[in-house]
């Protein structure tokens, strides 16, 4: 948390998310982060002691274990329909071990 929130910091963070930011984009985030930190202070001011996090709007059970029966099956052809490079039911990627 104490690390300086500069362009390099956000570029590194973006890389952990598997994308790049250019200089201008990283600079934008630095500026926006200043506003965000001020907004987050508004959150800090709220006393939440003893309050449970609200994860979903309703806490009634709407999902149950279903019977272990196969349904809604798609074919291998459909499963790979949107893959650009494929061969014999596999998608092709560069070699991992070279």
């Amino acid at each position: 948390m104490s690390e300086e929130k500069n362009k390099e910091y956000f570029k590194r963070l973006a890389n952990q998310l598997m994308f790049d930011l250019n200089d201008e984009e990283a600079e934008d985030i630095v500026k926006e982060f200043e506003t965000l930190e001020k907004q987050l202070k508004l959150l800090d001011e709220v006393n939440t002691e003893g309050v449970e996090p609200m994860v979903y709007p309703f806490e009634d059970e709407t999902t149950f274990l279903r019977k272990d029966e196969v349904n809604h099956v798609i074919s291998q052809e459909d499963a790979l329909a949107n893959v650009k490079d494929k061969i014999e039911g596999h998608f092709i990627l560069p070699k991992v071990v070279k």
Partner: protein
Amino acid sequence: MIQEMAKDVVNAKERCMDAYEKAVTLQEKLNDAITLIDPSEQLETLPEGGLFHGVPIALKDNVNTKGILTTAGSRILSNYVPVYDAEIVTKLKKEGAVIIAKASMDELAMGGTNLTCFTGPSLNPWDTNRMTGGSSGGSAAMVASGVVPMAIGSDTGDSIRKPASFCGIVGVKPTYGRISRYGIIPYASSLDHVGYFTRSIEDACISLQALAGRDDRDMTSSFKEVPDYLGLLNSDMNGKKIAIFGNVQDALTNPETKEMFAKLMHALEERGAKVDVFYFSEELMKAMLPTYYLIANCEATSNHSNLDGIRFGVREKGDSMEEIMINSRTKGFGPLIRKRFVIGSYGLFEENQDKLFRKAQKVRRLIVNELNKCLGEYDCLIAPASNDIAPLLNDTSRDQLSDGYLIVENHMVIGNFSGYPSMTVPMGFEEGCPIGVNLTCKAFDEVTMFNIGKAIEEITGYKDLTAEVK
């Protein structure tokens, strides 16, 4: 309008072809569709009868449609053709609906302007120099311009209700769990709702009748019975208790909007409603936007980690799997999306989770507790949907720490935090452009929401409003 169309079986084909042709013509002026669909094939296989028999409709482009391009407004999905239909598509087809367009939207539904779609902004039918609002802007524009009487949208913050205000139509976000989300490309799972736009309250009732109901494939889908919304429609306001959202009313700076809203409240009182002002804790009101921002971005970062160009979507070149992913995600997402993912990821860091993400979830509960207090006493919470009409396309003037922004422009997220039904209906016009009023009711009480909406429609006379696109 939908009911009359569905009864007019003889003209179904002509009606749908006309709608398609109008959509093609208006596309040049409004850029409100990503894919236009010639309905000829669907017209050959229309089922008999149905609430939407031969009614042309549009779907937001985050609704999966088997065999039809579904991009969610993002370049990374610009080649994605689903192999299955979303549950709502199956339901609408069974009711005889004819899909003529996949509508423009903010990229991955993350935005309130509709400026971030990879095919460019959609334009407001009332004034093409103005935004439609987003993220369901294309759907709103197609309804407002009279192309279709109903279009599907999705709403995570106010993505149906804000464009409805800017486009002068009805925008409905029903209760969380009322409409199945199976097959909808997600944004933030605890806040995402499927909803729709119409030009009248009657059409809003029929649409929910067709769309609502339990779906085992959506783990949040409700088991509650679906009422006969149209049969129960009744605009009698005697005995109705309406709470004006005091914090929003006080933060309004536009005198025209204030006056318009005050007149409407007076008219509801004259019809027998009891109208009071209800204030939420100011501290919670100001925390509403950061709470939303954190929850939405944290959930989105996680949801969209599957968009990597490997299994589906646009794949860029690279010498390793990592390089392919990085190149695909860098080119595939616009700058706004990447920024939001960075913020979301920051909120999910182990050292930040309690301080930021969990904190936001706790504040969410406190905000909903306040809403429960309000709706424990009143049938409905009401406020203008915005301070002003739709912003101009190049407007970037908002101060993101002002009350105007933190409260007036973002109060509708309360409907997403709570999951309660919330709807925008037209309230009036300023500079020739519409502005709406928003109402939020108790969970699964869409009947009351439609009834109050109907009374407002009768007061304003704004039913079946259609923009003449210049």
